[in-house]
């Protein structure tokens, strides 16, 4: 049995109780002179009546740490790539997961794999595509059930939004984004609003935000409060919130951050060994390097671990 500690915060004179069974030291002095006048060893005071009265008056609203609810470990679902699942345990439900990496690093491949796995489980999924970059042929080749995938293509503006923008009737983010319909900032504005609507609607197994084509200087302008709001909205729901981007932007709001590496070393190695590789040699086995940068799934310091898996084009069979 651990010993009890009863202390008083110097700043606010607020007691903290870590275990309420025993009391080592209690300072019931009314004036500070007696306390500082003579250095005395800590004295064990056992005064049940005083302790009871003190607890009643001061500790009524304090919950002992031992009674705090333990945050449940989120359910993990498959990302569709066995090697990555072995490393991360899968994608957590009710959490924000970031997949970041440069162009041609395999971000979209990973996204499509996760979507294929989710639709294969019978879940409805949504992709909010800021860059309007999704290729339906690739989506079908990846094994995604098209009926279960909602695709929102940001980019174009409607007459109502134009009028709203002119009149300034839309209060949300109106100071944050000022742009026309083809600007990255306008696409980003649409993405955030659509994501809010989808999270409010609920019922989706996976919601993916595709920010891969937006420049980092634009995506970094998303306030952290927005990511916090997304995280709170998706919490305690079975939805996997996935953000695909060039650089990590959600900060501590993301529960899992996977960084994908460039394929330059693999291609260079291939080119040095075979100066004129065939088409099949390259696109039938693209090596993708994934690294866990942050994971909140376990109560231990984040570790950095890597995994390499491959992808190929659909026509390669």
């Amino acid at each position: 049995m651990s010993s009890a500690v009863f202390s008083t915060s110097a700043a606010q004179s607020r007691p903290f109780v870590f275990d309420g069974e025993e009391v080592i030291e209690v300072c019931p002095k009314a004036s500070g002179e007696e306390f500082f006048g003579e250095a005395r060893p800590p004295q064990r005071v056992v005064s049940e009546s005083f302790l009871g009265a003190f607890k009643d008056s001061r500790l009524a609203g304090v919950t002992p740490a031992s009674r705090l609810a333990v945050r449940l470990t989120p359910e993990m679902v498959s990302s569709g790539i066995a090697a990555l699942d072995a490393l991360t345990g899968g994608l957590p439900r009710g959490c924000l997961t970031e997949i970041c990496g440069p162009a041609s690093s395999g971000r979209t491949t990973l996204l499509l794999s996760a979507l294929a796995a989710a639709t294969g489980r019978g879940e409805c999924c949504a992709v909010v595509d800021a860059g309007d970059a999704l290729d339906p042929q690739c989506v079908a080749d990846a094994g995604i059930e098209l009926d279960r995938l909602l695709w929102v293509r940001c980019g174009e503006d409607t007459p109502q939004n134009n009028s709203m923008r002119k009149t300034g009737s839309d209060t949300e983010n109106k100071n944050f984004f000022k742009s026309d319909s083809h600007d990255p900032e306008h696409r980003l504005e649409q993405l955030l609003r659509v994501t809010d609507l989808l999270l409010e609607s609920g019922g989706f197994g996976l919601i993916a935000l595709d920010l891969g084509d937006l420049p980092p200087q634009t995506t970094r302008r998303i306030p952290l409060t927005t990511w916090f709001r997304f995280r709170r909205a998706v919490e305690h729901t079975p939805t996997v919130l996935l953000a695909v981007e060039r650089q990590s932007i959600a900060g501590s709001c993301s529960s899992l951050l996977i960084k994908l590496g460039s394929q330059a070393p693999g291609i260079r190695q291939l080119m040095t060994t075979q100066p004129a590789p065939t088409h099949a040699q390259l696109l039938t086995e693209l090596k993708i390097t994934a690294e866990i940068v942050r994971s909140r799934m376990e109560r231990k310091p984040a570790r950095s671990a890597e995994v390499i898996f491959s992808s190929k084009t659909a026509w390669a069979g």
Partner: protein
Amino acid sequence: MPFACIFVPNFTVAAVFRAEFELRARAVAIFEGKPPLEKVFAVNDNAGRAGIAPGMTKAQAELCSELTLYPRSLLQESAAHAALLDCAQSFSPCVEDAAADTAILDLAGMESLFGTLPEIAHDLFRCGADLGLDVNVSVASNPDAAMLAARGFPGVTVIPSGKEAECLGSLPIHVLFAAGSGNQQTKGKEKKSDQEKEAIRLLETLERWGVRDLRALAALPQVALSERLGQEGLRLQGLARGSASRTLVPVEAPAIFEEAVELEFPIVLLEPLAFLLNRLLEQICARLAVRALNTQELRLTLGLQNLTGVDPESDTVGIPGESDVSHGAAEAESPAQHFVSGRQRKFCRILRLPLPMLDPKLFLKLLQLDLNAHPPGAPITKIHLIAEPARPRSAQGGLFLPPSPEPEKLELTLARIARLVGEARVGSMELLDTHRAEGFRMRRFVPGTQPNLSRKTSEAAEDKPAVAALRMFRPTLRVTVTLENGELARVSCTKKKEVQGTVLWKAGPWRSSGDWWDREAWARDEWDIALQSTDGVVLYRLVHDLLGGGWFVEGTYD
């Protein structure tokens, strides 16, 4: 065998009050006829106390400053009559459409379902109130006694079996003739006038005899009455005694759910329109609810003010014709379609829902979003709303089914998203049977409820390579390609600075063409190239358009 009768007193006024609820507290007179020969057709109690009576000219009625004059609307009366039948049919399948303001229903066997007769009568009264009608309800052992009691006594009346003559005795004699005039709307004018004349003659005769109520008529000797008034006199006496018996003529109420309102002043803004739409939607949904139906399609027709100078009489504003409907349906597969009549006087929006629903708030929000996206373009003078009935969806819920969005919420969310990004840019993708680039189209997102059992349901991912994805550039990037000895050497793009550099590696060309028999023929060569960029090596798909000329970067492998 018990029968119930539902009667709507002052039906013409009640039909208007049903559509314009705020008029109930005011003095209202309904007029009809073509100007300048408009006459007052019906008045409510407040107007009667102010001295307004049917038959007065509109000009005479307008002298009363407190009076609200309202034109007679046959469409509103038709909707009120349909609501009356819906109310009756929600309790019994055997309903007789006795008159526009009267419905009689057979309650045999209904006591085990709905409770005792007084309970059923009160439920009928409550159901009528829910549908916007102040009704009189009576229950008696024969249909005619029930109808006389409903026409004579306000509120709910339950006549015990065998006490019909005693209960009906206090009713004035003219109730008998009012009951006979119920079916007059459907008969010819000549026959109607003959019946009216005969009724007036009989009524005058009875008054001369000093017969003021039904008790006095019931007490007359039968033979003497027959000698003086013939068979009609005996029929009336049978009615007064409550002993007349007949079989009901049941009708099946048509499944037409429409509501309309004509506006005194045209509406310009959408916000006041929403208030009216809300009222119409609530009435339609209440009617659908009592028939245990939902709707999957709402058709909104707005009559617009004539701003073009065209003769307003030459084109009637009303229910859209077949040609108009087919015009609307011929458009693309958008969730809502609209058309405007040839003379710009009707504006129609069709709201199609993926599943049967019954939520007036949801419908209102969807219509608001739709009208925001497609404004009518002229002041609105008339609103006409039709709901196509559909059976409620039945879905078996399961504890282990994967999460799925609620259809109502999803529909509203999709409408809101469509307002943000455009209708054509939200939905699910559908591949077309072509090898052409961008060979797909968007269609409405309607998630299936049942998981695809043919797919492998295992949770564990298979240990096989993932499919490399292509990220498209929309629109494609026009690039300048430098060739060295006929080989790709360098690519540069002015629009996107990242897409430039020396070609490290290339594969191709992959040659394809199609639609050569059509005007939109295409032919292209594709290369897969690797370029050195600041972030590293990036793989692109390079396309050479053989027909149009020019080099394009279509996307990047990611």
